[in-house]
């Protein structure tokens, strides 16, 4: 909860300004918050949500393709590559520029420190393999890692995703859990004072 006003502003600018991700227009508001209702997770709908919300924009490393930068779908949703050691982020001068992004779009540096996008595949050691559906929903609702731990850092738009219905979030989680597990240990975030 140390997230300051400026950090929240930066998050907003960085995510929406640069990524241009879209919220899916189809949201069944009638089941909002209905955790108690029985729901059979729909993997296909979860896949649709992940595509539409732009999860690959940050959680899939980008590479240079024939038409410019594009997500490397051979490493879909595996987060920041563990073998890509990032040098210290360049320090920006005072002014309106506030964030720096790695070429893979998986490493972000700003007033919050340096954050690395998570491995969303169900690998038990390095991904979401030991997460529960409830933990995933709480994470999106609270902005806290595993629903209790450290704050989820920018540019992760958890507050936007947290507005999805329980059923939508269950579908997203079911899809992520259906992916092949990939072992990729993402570095821990770096505090701003330690850069």
């Amino acid at each position, binding site marked *: 909860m140390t997230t300051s006003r400026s950090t929240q502003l930066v998050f907003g600018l960085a995510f929406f300004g640069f990524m241009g991700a879209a919220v899916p227009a189809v949201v069944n508001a009638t089941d909002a918050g209905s955790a108690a209702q029985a729901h059979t997770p729909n993997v296909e709908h979860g896949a649709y949500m992940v595509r539409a919300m732009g999860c690959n924009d940050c959680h899939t490393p980008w590479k240079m393709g024939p038409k410019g930068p594009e997500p490397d779908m051979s490493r879909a949703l595996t987060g920041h590559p563990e073998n890509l050691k990032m040098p210290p982020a360049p320090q920006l001068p005072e002014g309106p520029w506030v964030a720096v992004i790695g070429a893979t779009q998986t490493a972000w540096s700003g007033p919050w420190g340096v954050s690395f996008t998570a491995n969303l595949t169900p690998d038990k050691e390095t991904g979401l393999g030991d997460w529960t559906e409830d933990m995933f929903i709480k994470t999106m609702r*609270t902005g806290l890692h595993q629903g209790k731990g450290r704050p989820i850092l920018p540019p992760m738009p958890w507050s936007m995703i947290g507005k999805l219905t329980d059923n939508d979030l269950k579908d997203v989680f079911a899809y992520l859990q259906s992916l092949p597990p990939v072992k990729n240990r993402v570095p821990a975030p770096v505090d701003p004072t330690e850069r």
Partner: protein
Amino acid sequence: MVIRGHFAVAALVALTVAGTSWRFAIEAAPAAPPLVAPATLVETGLYADARIGEIDPRNRPFSPQYPLWTDGATKRRWIQLPAGAQIDATDAYEWQFPVGTKVWKEFAFAGRKVETRFIWRASANEWVFASYVWNADGTAAVIADGDGLPGAAEVAPNKFHNIPSVDQCRACHVSNRTEILGFNALQLSTDRDPNALHGEPLAAGMVTLETLSNEGLLAPARPELVTTPPRIAARSAEERALLGYLAGNCGACHNRQTELAPLGLHWKHGDLATRGADALLSLEGHRTKWQASGVADGETVAIDPMNPEQSAILRRMRSRSPASQMPPLGTVVQDREAVALLQRWLESQAVTVSREHER
């Protein structure tokens, strides 16, 4: 055959009619809407006379001996139990509260009331959480947005108190066996820790373990809790204060019941009262996923007795950066007294370990 056929038709009709009636019953009785918190603090029933801030006498003040650090906020707390109802005190450390129980906690910074939080057991299955934001002159408080309110008060230069979202309230309060975290046999023990950090003096009229017992508000009565009040098992007064602090500030999430149990930090009131220092000593050399700067990758440990400064627990309690700080929410200013207390304890352990190595 004919008779059987008639029976079959009759049964089908009966089932159809029964099914239709059942459907009608379902459609005619829509689910009751969830109970929600009132729009204003006054409507929660805290005051007898809100104009002069007079508290309704049914709302009893209390003060946990190991309070939660909230950046130096001054707090006042009250609890209301429904008339004739009792607290289920079967588990001394995790009480179950009757339907209708209400709890309030008021937060003030530099003498100005900022928010009053409200927990209400509205039904057997529903706990309602809300926070009420005070206006600038402290005359009225209205319910905060469920998403919380960042920047509610400046508590240090460019550091702001944030009112948590309802989901953040639930993150700590709903994942335990009891939703009211600062109200149990240890927190209300009459064997009060004189060295508790930020401990508040008991004021006249405050509820304690003894008053609850004397008034017959505990079921079972648990008279032994009064004759032998709960106390943290510790080897020194400082250790007692440290363990109590961890119970009050960390144990709500770091315990055996939540998703964080595998981390090995089991610091709930009951654990620390009975296990004492073992709850900390067992973490010596215990590797953490969190990575301390200046420590080789994967080598960070919760408690490093040979190098206390490298201990993750100390680093994270000292930090107020989002990626590292503990607790992760509810505070933006380091609790220097707590950090110093932990540091002294770690250094004393280092001396102990060093002496053992010399033998």
